[in-house]
């Protein structure tokens, strides 16, 4: 017998002719990202195994628990091919835990925790404290236009320092950096996928389309 429910997306997610974008589906809010990307016309697939990286032109690493994503990505042979793909220029967008996975250096990591790297930044986990300090706020993100971005931070990280290769895209009112980009990589401390904010995903899909054209 086949399994009762399998990890698949709604009909239509993969049927689009848009860019082929994978969402890392080891743990976290990957369905919310898949929903936004599908709405924006991408052809979306879920990624849990190395072979599922082959057909994609871009990847989203969702919110969730970075320690769990790190462990599972190494246990199931995803970490090394992902690092190679990032080095080769695969566009990747990480939110919250995804930003931690993309950071070259992570503060307040657990013993043995590794990141994939790629973004020339130092990120601190749980930088605001416990869930009681989780918050929502409006951010100015000049790269996305004049209208503020409503941003939801859930035990989120911050970018403590931005290296010379990376660029800060947004800060909260006390000046701490919460969104960065570097070439084909994009990372946010917050979760546009859970409150109907599509502009970061559009911005990312533009990177995916541009990379697919030059490839």
């Amino acid at each position, binding site marked *: 017998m086949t*399994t009762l*429910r399998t990890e698949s997306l709604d009909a239509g997610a993969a049927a689009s002719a848009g860019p082929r974008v994978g969402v890392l589906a080891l743990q976290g809010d990957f369905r919310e990202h898949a929903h936004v990307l599908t709405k924006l016309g991408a052809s979306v697939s879920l990624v849990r195994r190395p072979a599922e990286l082959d057909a994609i032109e871009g990847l989203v690493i969702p*919110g*969730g628990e970075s320690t769990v994503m790190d462990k599972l990505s190494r246990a199931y042979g995803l970490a090394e091919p992902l690092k190679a793909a990032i080095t080769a220029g695969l566009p990747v967008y990480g939110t919250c835990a995804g930003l931690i996975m993309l950071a070259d250096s992570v503060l307040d990591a657990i013993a043995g925790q590794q990141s994939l790297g790629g973004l020339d930044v130092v990120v601190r986990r749980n930088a*605001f404290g416990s869930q009681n*300090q989780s*918050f929502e706020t409006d951010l100015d993100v000049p790269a996305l236009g004049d209208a503020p971005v409503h941003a939801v931070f859930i035990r989120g990280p911050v970018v403590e320092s931005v290296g010379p290769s990376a660029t800060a895209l947004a800060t909260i009112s006390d000046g701490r950096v919460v969104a960065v980009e570097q070439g084909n990589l994009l990372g946010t401390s917050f*979760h546009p996928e859970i409150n109907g904010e599509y502009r970061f995903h559009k911005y990312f899909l533009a990177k995916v389309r541009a990379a697919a054209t030059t490839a």
Partner: protein
Amino acid sequence: MTEASVPAPAATSQTGSSRVKRGLAEMLKGGVIMDVVTAEQARIAEDAGAVAVMALERVPADIRAQGGVARMSDPDLIEAIIAEVSIPVMAKARIGHFVEAQVLQALDVDYIDESEVLSPADYVNHIDKWAFNTPFVCGATNLGEALRRINEGAAMIRSKGEAGTGDVSEATKHIRKITSEINALKSMTRDELYVAAKELQAPYELVLEVAETGKLPVVLFTAGGVATPADAAMMMQLGADGVFVGSGIFKSGNPEARAAAVVKATTFYDDPSVIAEVSRGLGEAMVGINVGDLAAPHRLAERGW
């Protein structure tokens, strides 16, 4: 909270909103939340890949075996667990015991479980969960109970199962009940939904929302009797967003291996070859009690209304 953590400026940000409370549960999806009674167990859970830990004084199997009144844990224990791990820490308050919940909020836990596993403090009222900045998870055996808890402010639901038994049958019954009642609402016309709200004893607005979206407005985990990787995978195939494992891990022969195996089976719940691989050589599962052998007064799932 580490010394380097600094809250966002209050003047420009809002904490404790529904979106922020429900949002943490969204980030836990596809993960395993493990019951722990010491900082050492919390460390093992985090190292094995738990997305969060539930701090409590005794695991449900011991509450069952030892009897007596089960209450919120000692604050020292909760603080030791918070200090030990970086993943979210949840802790249990008795049903209706809003002062235990106030204490847990003051201790800065990440989620409060208003739990039938502890002895109820109020046989009429549940806690007004809207009054808190810290989010709540509550148990439910059916859709009406889940929606009543959400109406009181719960930001996450777990189906109850029968905690401390290692018998997954009640967890199966409750997740099936909730999902089948959701499916029934989806095919109803508006006039039928008014009657459904009356029969579910739940607010019409929430019933309408479930009918329109086809899911609860909050994340739905399962709990109560999950003891093996296959149990966890079955809960996921039945539609759970994630799994709580209580006594099943630290009452087993090899908690480290079993915890890591349950995490893998929860991610790859639709791949029997992975579940087979991780199920090998785990040693003794918790001994367990058949729910059918429990006299009705000892069934925890019947607490809460």
